[in-house]
């Protein structure tokens, strides 16, 4: 046993960017344990993608090509990957930590009798083996963990933690077919369609300024101070997920991995803690201001300017300062 597999994710012929980050992570793990990294691709007619993967510096690209794998359904994907893993015995199977891959990685771990370590953000090889870092408590803390024994592990890596390497390497890895037991590829989900999560979509992606409000606002009746600040800044209003889930603002205002990805010039995060699922939606902002009463809130790690304190005092004061500073 010994290889490290990076599982590529794709949709409609295009690789998910997380795939290449999984490749980077697989290479790092392989280096740490003295092994090699391979890319693994499940799909149907995925030659172009396989060729792309062959130029990422992996030792090989393993391809399970079958019509039943054309689009993602967990049952067939799990069966195909478990079958291949049992045959080739990789030590680590690395997935991007995405809505699709996490949906079936546990099934793979179970079928392959592997341990699971999800959402890894860093790893460090030391005298006592590899130490893995992952966020806990919604990013407020992080945990360092160790894997016991040398049995197989299924690992997922958080978006952005293992940036994709430059793919212009001259080397082209061999593409090797993986055997699939076609009879076992039974889809257990009967796909009916895809819909937009929000009815009318306010497009926040083109906004220059956004005031984003989080659970710290406490309720919809408190929103006027946010509206006033947004008006003073000429900004649109966005929100973190709990604000939407609680029905305080409509779903089309949600920013983050399940909502919109924005890149304004100015992003003011009010009463938002800064969980990764929120950060991925706003880290492209040019200038970020965080207002939060908790000095340890992770949002302060990504913000340019921070004010620690009660938003109910700070937001009105900021609105006032903006209005007063306007040239009359």
């Amino acid at each position, binding site marked *: 046993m010994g290889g490290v597999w990076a599982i590529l994710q794709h949709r409609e012929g295009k690789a998910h960017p997380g795939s290449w980050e999984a490749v980077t992570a697989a290479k790092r793990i392989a280096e740490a344990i003295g092994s090699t990294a391979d890319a693994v691709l499940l799909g149907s007619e995925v030659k172009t993608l396989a060729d792309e993967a062959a130029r990422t510096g992996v030792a090989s690209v393993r391809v399970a090509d079958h019509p039943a794998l054309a689009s993602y359904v967990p049952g067939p994907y799990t069966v195909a990957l478990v079958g291949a893993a049992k045959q080739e015995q990789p030590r680590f199977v690395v997935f991007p930590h995405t809505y*699709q891959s996490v949906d079936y990685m546990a*099934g793979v771990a179970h079928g392959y009798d592997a*341990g*699971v370590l999800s959402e890894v953000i860093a790893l460090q090889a030391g005298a006592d083996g590899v130490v893995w870092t992952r966020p806990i408590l919604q990013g407020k803390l992080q945990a360092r963990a160790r894997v016991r024994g040398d049995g197989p592990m299924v690992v997922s890596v958080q978006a952005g933690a293992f940036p994709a390497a430059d793919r212009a390497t001259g080397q082209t890895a061999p593409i090797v077919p993986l055997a699939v037991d076609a009879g076992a590829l039974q889809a257990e989900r009967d796909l009916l369609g895809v819909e937009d999560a929000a009815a009318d979509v306010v497009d926040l992606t083109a906004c220059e300024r956004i005031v984003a409000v989080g659970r710290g606002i406490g309720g919809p009746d408190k929103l006027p101070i946010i509206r006033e600040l947004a008006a003073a800044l000429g900004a649109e209003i966005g929100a973190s997920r709990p604000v939407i889930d609680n029905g305080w603002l409509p779903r089309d205002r949600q920013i983050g991995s399940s909502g919109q990805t924005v890149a304004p010039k*100015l992003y003011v995060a009010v009463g938002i803690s800064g969980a990764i699922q929120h950060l991925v939606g706003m880290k492209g902002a040019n200038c970020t201001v965080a207002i939060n009463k908790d000095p340890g809130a992770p949002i302060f790690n990504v913000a340019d300017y921070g004010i620690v304190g009660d938003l109910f005092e700070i937001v009105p004061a900021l609105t006032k300062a903006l209005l007063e500073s306007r040239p009359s």
Partner: protein
Amino acid sequence: MKIAVCIKQVPDTEARLRLNKQGTWIEEEDLPFVINESDECALEEALQIRDKSGGGEVVVFSLGPERVREALRKALALGADRAAHLHDPAFSLGDPVATARALAAAVGREPFDLVLTGSQSDDLGWGVTASLVAARLGLPHAWLVMGIEVENGGGSARVVREMEAGKNEIFRLRLPAVLEVQAGINHPRYASLKGIMQAKRKEIATLSRAEIGLAEGEAGAAGSRVEILKVDFPRAGTGARILEGDVASTASQLVELLRAEARVL
């Protein structure tokens, strides 16, 4: 319908966190605990499905120390019929595989038409425990469920699942299945006084490792491949420039910085 719901008790997201002395976990003393957000939504969904189906039972399962009884009591007050507390020192410090092994063993003791769980715990956040339960029970599953409609007299469900970037996919799944609910699927109810009174008479069964048929090496730390060594606060990265002073002064400093330094006004 007879529905199992797995709920985890986690620190309130509002709570200020401190590390324990050894730096191996957070200090739990005086820490307020609540039912995990997506698990509370799973419970609400279960209660609605039970009531719509015209009968049946909602049974809540939770693995954890003594304090977890409070979460189970709350679930009963909200309308669950029975509760099972997986309570044994042998369950502690389990990785997701060990925790799922115990939950699956407990849930698998009786037949259920549906198993509902949350998608992710707000403390450890593995995001995989419930899918591992499904795998152990040999049931189909879905992670990040944003809609459930039971059809065919309970034979199948139309499931809405969240995908990235504001899209949902819709599919049909045969039941029983494990559906891992995402926060936002519904607005959980509040406990009524009547519910709180009734909960006092409802049963909370306690299940030990031996009672659910797990061997010593299968539960908790002993049954885990992953061991947490240390927890700490993430290094502040480059970090924000924190503005000091009273409220009025920080506000005017910020306006000045946004104008002159960041040039975004």
